[in-house]
């Protein structure tokens, strides 16, 4: 399985290098814009703009990972890799593991960037000190892992069952996120957000997060098992 | 020992190999006890199947010209000098029968043939 993880990482790193500059711009511009206006942390629209940037980054990661599936089918690699001493199960579990590991390391990088900005930017923008708090960042980081895993768990079985070409509808799911952010009225989001904040406030954010993470991991695990079964029977 | 194979001669490859090695042994080019290339090594050099070289070696062994030691390879057997002479005589006989055939076609009589032979002996 190590060889498959290695192959996936070679591909992902090469793709990410291409996206990196664009991703950084997309990530930082909204943050800076939001900050320069001296935002209040509970000012949803400004915070939202920051979120869009981060979400765009995640979308980039997502497309990179999905591109792995597409790249498999070019040149016959998805067949050729089975001539290595790996089983079909190794292929599926390897891909799931790879996505999990990529996600965690990506998250770590984003969080570190956030921490760095928190340390550096407040010096330029004094109001920032309140806008960034470490706890909040970690919460957001862990929360996004959960969300990502949940989303991917839904898509992967389709991809393993039909392959990237026939299951391309599954690949376009993340495109809905930025679309949704543009289409859904901001008031509705604010309403849901405030309700969520209240709920989280009553329980405390960390237990809620733990439950979400656990649920996402279970979903991911079940998805992996399903994909194994589906892939075993697939004609390449 | 350089073996040259002909694809178009019609003679089976293993026979070509066996006869060329036999010539080398009988002419003294290969000394008794000298190691022959391995079956696969020879097959690789000649660009043929190892089954063919194996067959050639088997035939040489059957004729008592080589000995195969398992694990070590094949070696030229010590040639019985009587056997050697017998082989040489056989070759001369063969050559003579070819000569007689040609002579018949050229309509040469026995006397003329003997004269030719005497001349050639003198020249040597």
């Amino acid at each position, binding site marked *: 399985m190590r060889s498959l993880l290695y192959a996936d990482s070679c591909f992902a790193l090469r793709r990410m290098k291409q996206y990196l500059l664009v991703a950084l711009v997309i990530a930082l511009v909204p943050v800076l814009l939001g900050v320069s206006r001296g935002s209040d942390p509970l000012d949803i629209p400004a915070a939202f703009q920051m979120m869009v940037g981060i979400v765009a980054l995640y979308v980039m990661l997502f497309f990179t990972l999905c591109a792995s599936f597409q790249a498999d089918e070019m040149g016959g690699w998805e067949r*050729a890799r089975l*001539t290595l001493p790996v089983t079909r199960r190794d292929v599926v579990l390897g891909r799931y593991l790879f996505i999990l590991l990529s996600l965690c390391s990506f998250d770590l990088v984003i969080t570190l960037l956030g921490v760095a900005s928190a340390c550096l930017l407040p010096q330029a923008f004094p109001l920032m000190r309140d806008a960034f708090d470490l706890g909040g960042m970690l919460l957001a980081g862990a929360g996004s892992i959960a969300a990502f895993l949940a989303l991917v768990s839904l898509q992967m079985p389709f991809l393993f069952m039909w392959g990237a070409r026939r299951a391309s509808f599954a690949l376009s799911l993340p495109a809905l996120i930025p679309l949704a952010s543009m289409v859904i009225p901001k008031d509705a989001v604010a309403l849901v957000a405030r309700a969520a904040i209240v709920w989280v406030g009553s329980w405390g954010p960390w237990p809620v997060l733990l439950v979400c993470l656990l649920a996402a991991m279970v979903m991911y695990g079940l998805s992996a098992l399903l994909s194994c079964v589906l892939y075993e029977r697939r004609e390449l | 020992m350089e073996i040259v194979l002909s694809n178009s001669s019609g003679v089976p490859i293993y026979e070509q190999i066996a006869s060329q090695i036999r010539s080398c042994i009988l002419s003294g080019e290969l000394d008794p006890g000298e190691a022959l290339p*391995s079956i*696969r090594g020879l097959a690789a050099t000649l660009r043929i199947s190892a089954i063919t070289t194996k067959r050639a070696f088997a035939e040489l062994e059957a004729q008592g010209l080589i000995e195969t030691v398992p694990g070590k390879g094949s070696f030229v057997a010590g040639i019985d000098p009587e056997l050697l002479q017998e082989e040489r005589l056989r070759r001369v006989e063969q050559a003579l029968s070819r000569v007689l055939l040609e002579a018949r076609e050229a309509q040469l009589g026995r006397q003329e043939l003997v004269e030719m032979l005497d001349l050639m002996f003198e020249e040597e």
Partner: protein
Amino acid sequence: MARCMESSVGTLDLSGEPSDLRVRGLAKSFDGFALKDVSFGVPRGSVVGLVGQNGAGKTTIMRGILGELAFDGGEVELFGQRLSGLDDAALRAVKSRVGFVSSVCAYPGEMSVAQVATMHYLAYPQFDHQLFEELAERMGLLPHDPRPHLSHAARKLVKDLSRGMGMKLQLACALACGASLLVMDEPTAGLDPIVREEVLDIIREYLEPGDKSVLISSHITSDLEHLADYVMMVDAGELLFSCEVSRIEDEMGLAQLRAAELEQVLRADERGFGPLRALRRSGVTALLVADRHAFGRQFPDYVCDPADIDDVMTLMVKGEVI
């Protein structure tokens, strides 16, 4: 001799010899094509060549042997172990002893040569990086450098490799991973004769110790004539014949006969030269003879040349038994 001319399956009985690969009764259906009851073995230390037209089933057989595709019926045995009965760990262990080379380099296009080698190193417990570098340098994939893995050539991407280089990369990886069985699907297709000979020489070297085997399919029958010990022919999903290559070269013949001559041959009382297959072409009949020496003795005036694999193929597919 007649064995070679039968059209039944599994005509060459190699069951007594230790085989690295043995398949029995393989069957697979696609739409428009079906593999039927294919059985053969690759004895240890030998080269078995697989010939047949495009779409005859050669690639299907090979893909199935490597586990890329599941057969509908039949059994694959690698190194004496049935693949169907193995658990994951055992399956990996068996597969790690098989190397595969295809005419098309299917490694991920965005990986570099050095990365492909590393991937094999991670996949095969016996991967020898030194051997990989030696072979790669010899075949021109990497330069003769003290540290070739750092060279520009090592960073070349798979998608930028020419067809010949792509195949050489596969070959270098397959040999460096310590495989006991090499399965090759048209490895020399589309390559010039010089490169083909290089590749064949490397395969011959690989075979020298005597404990490695090769299963190779090819259209270039002259390559097989200079490498293979046995040849098998597949047509429309069935195994038509199998025999030793030397039998074809040393014993079989292709006679070209005029109508009157053919009559004579057919009327012959004793057919010491074996059963016949014929192909008629504008008045002249090409006749495949199992023993050309016997034929030559019986009919010394008729044209009878040594047969080659192409002749046998043509006559087995297009000819008729007479």
